[in-house]
């Protein structure tokens, strides 16, 4: 047993990490699905989208072969509508609310239709937006993730000149660095960022990290307003013995490496345990398998009832051959020569509901032991509390406190996305960016 890279051939890597989303092969295929949509009024799908994309309208536009109009409708509400159509858990958002569910029929394939229009727009670089003439106002955005780019796009359309400070070498944030590559490919992420920038009026300064290369006070003095979309990023620790052993990694950095280094550079064990059952846990487990791990076991301290990921996500993991162990919580990582050899877990039963309303796990006192050489921790992410506190922003356990339009406790400083909500979907961050832009436009009197 060992943790190694280069487990597969280039062809195998490419196959394992190619886009899993089936496109519509042609217009006719898209039309068949578009014509199933009954064009609801005050549509449940639209109400279930955090960015309120006018779903019936964009689908109707596909049906009338007005694909440009369709893409414009999507991007008007969600400039990352392309990426969101690949990474959104639509089964609990738009598609989950489709009225066809109430007729016991398959819901409209909203995400697939959304991909049809947006991929075309991005590929063919349709200039669907024009910005108003520059009004001389300058805004700094920290973080070129979904919240930051969404905010920047709205501001630029209104004639504001935007400079985005991004700590990484590429834009897209979580989309580029934190989600399984087979859901949203690196090439697509780059194209999407370029498409957003093609509006003009937005400059991204890469490799510029807040608190390291640039300070908040500096930006406040140079710009008319500052928007913080710095996300979350620190992996929650398990706080169990053996966590320091070689072979224990966190899912965030594991996925980051996959997205930034190239598949054959990332080391993975023979037998991998993944702790947690959220979207990130799924992305870590499935990608560990796709990197060539022989055996991947996902452990969750509660049951399928309470799991944070959707059933669709769980099925991806199952189809990839990941094993699932419910009602088990990690107790200790055992090792030899400083390397992981085993994971000991307590088995649990469900007790009373906790603050989240979910029944909380209770330790049975019994244990199970897995032979593993790698443990991936995906037990949640924590905000950049130190950074937030250092900059004297009002916060709750590191999450920046704002009003509805991203207004923070510091005048002229706005914030939104994961750094405020603690870590939600990409689509929530895009909406937060729009809200923040509205707050900034108010503040600037535009």
């Amino acid at each position: 047993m060992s943790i190694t890279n280069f487990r597969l051939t280039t062809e195998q890597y490419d196959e394992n990490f190619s886009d899993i989303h089936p496109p519509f092969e042609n217009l006719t295929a898209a039309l068949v699905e578009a014509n199933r949509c009954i064009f609801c009024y005050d549509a449940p799908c639209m109400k279930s989208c955090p960015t309120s994309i006018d779903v019936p309208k964009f689908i109707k536009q596909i049906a009338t072969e007005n694909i440009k109009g369709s893409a414009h409708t999507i991007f008007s509400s969600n400039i990352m509508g392309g990426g969101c159509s690949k990474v959104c858990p639509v089964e609990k958002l738009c598609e989950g609310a489709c009225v066809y569910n109430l007729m016991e029929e398959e819901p409209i394939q909203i995400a697939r239709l959304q991909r049809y229009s947006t991929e075309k727009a991005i590929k063919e670089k349709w200039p669907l937006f024009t910005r108003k003439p520059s009004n001389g106002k300058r805004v700094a955005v920290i973080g070129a993730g979904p919240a930051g780019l969404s905010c920047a796009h709205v501001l630029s359309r209104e004639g504001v000149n935007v400079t985005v400070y991004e700590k990484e070498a590429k834009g897209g944030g979580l989309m580029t660095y934190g989600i399984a590559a087979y859901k949203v490919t690196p090439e697509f992420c780059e194209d999407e960022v370029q498409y957003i920038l093609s509006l003009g009026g937005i400059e991204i300064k890469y490799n510029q990290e807040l608190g390291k290369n640039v300070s908040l006070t500096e930006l406040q003095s140079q710009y008319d307003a500052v928007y913080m979309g710095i996300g979350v990023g620190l992996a929650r620790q398990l706080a169990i013995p053996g966590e320091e052993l070689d072979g224990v990694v966190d899912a965030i950095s594991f996925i980051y490496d996959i997205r930034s280094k190239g598949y054959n550079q990332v080391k993975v064990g023979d037998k991998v345990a993944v702790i947690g059952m959220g979207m990130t846990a799924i992305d870590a487990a499935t990608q560990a398998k796709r990197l060539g791990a022989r055996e991947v076991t996902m452990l969750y301290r509660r049951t399928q009832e309470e799991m944070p990921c959707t059933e669709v996500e769980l099925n991806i993991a199952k189809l990839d051959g990941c094993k699932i162990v419910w009602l088990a919580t990690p107790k200790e990582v055992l090792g030899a020569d400083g390397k992981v050899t085993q994971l000991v877990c307590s088995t649990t039963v469900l007790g009373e509901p906790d603050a989240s309303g979910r029944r909380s796990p209770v330790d049975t006192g019994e244990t199970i032991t897995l032979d593993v050489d790698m443990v991936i921790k995906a037990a949640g992410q924590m905000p950049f509390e130190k950074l937030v506190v250092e900059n004297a922003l009002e916060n709750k356990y590191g999450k920046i406190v704002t009003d509805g339009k991203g207004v923070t406790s510091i005048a002229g400083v706005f914030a939104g996305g994961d750094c405020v909500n603690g870590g939600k979907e990409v689509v929530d961050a895009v909406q937060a960016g729009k809200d923040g832009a509205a707050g900034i436009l108010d503040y600037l009197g535009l």
Partner: protein
Amino acid sequence: MADISADFLGIKSPNPFWLASAPPTDKKINVLRAFEAGWGGVVWKTLGSQVKNVSSRYSAVDYHGSRVMGFNNIELISDRPLDINLREIREVLKEFPDRAMIVSLMADNDKQSWHDLIKRVEDTGAHGLELNFGCPHGMTERGMGAAVGQDPEIARMVVEWVMEVATIPVITKLTPNVHSVVPTGLASVLGGTNALSLINTIQSVTGVDLDTFVPNPNVGGKSAFGGYCGPAVKPIALKFLTTIAQNEITRKVPISGIGGVSTWKDAVEFMLLGASNVQVCTAVMKHGFRIVEDMCEGLSYWMDEKGFTKLDDFIGKSVPTVTNWEDLDINYHIVANINQDKCVHCGLCYIACEDTSHQSIALDYGKPYNKYTIKEEECVGCNLCKLVCPVDDCITMVEQRKAPEYMNWKDFQRLGMPLNDH
């Protein structure tokens, strides 16, 4: 099991489904395939002086993802030599003596031409003749087809020429390209025709190509008005049929119903409104001859369910229910009811009523599902909500009479009853 065999002017067929005079009945090979598939009869594609056709010839209207809701052609009458057609008719008659063989005719516009053509066709042993007074394109410019059908006097004259020599039943086919089919229908009956058939195709432009700017069908960069048919024309055909079935004179002859018949249900509707049988074309041009199997079975099961043993039990049954608007009962009133258990909250009823009707549906906001209820006092009973609702039997119309007695618009006026106050 119901008896679905048909007798039209003594012409027997195992079922009331004939193929209309059109491309599917132009050649022996087609007609044999049709008979093998089970069609009860055919009207052989129109014979007359030989013509030359163009390419392309057809175009269609698609709707909401469904192909060929309406169909259009600029094809003329048979472009094959008359001798070949006559020989093939003879051969088919020999192979399928139990099927109806009607031959459509459109002779040149003089008596002798009609007489000569009729004699040659009767020689084949065909069972009946259909006079094509309806073709709306190509032939019209030569004073034939619809040019005859649009002028009752000319139509009557030609029918009289025909009746001088015809010894087999004659059906006169009417054009819908008139404000009413009754005048020509009447003239034809007075001229002696044994039966009527309707409708022929409706002059149309099915659409314009948004890249070439040329309407369909495109013939080398130009187009011409064509004849429209298929499911889209059925309601128009049913209306024309009803007027013929209601007229004191024209109702005395049998009617062969034509116009968008695609299923057994369509056929039943035509027959309820007075057609003794139906003719089909577009549906087979889209699906092939095999559709006749379901037409026969569907008709038969429906007749069994309704207790009808033969076609005459229901032919014309609905004709008396079509009346003049001013004879309708003003005291009859219905209001919509939404079954909340079936409602899927799509809001289609609400937006249709709110934007375009009587603001009779209340919306209670919900996320993601709104609740919709009928404001009964506002509802005029128009049916719109029920028509747009995607769920069967979710919206029903409930009778709430305004008063027990029958009262029509004439009584209403005579009594000086109050009109709406808003």
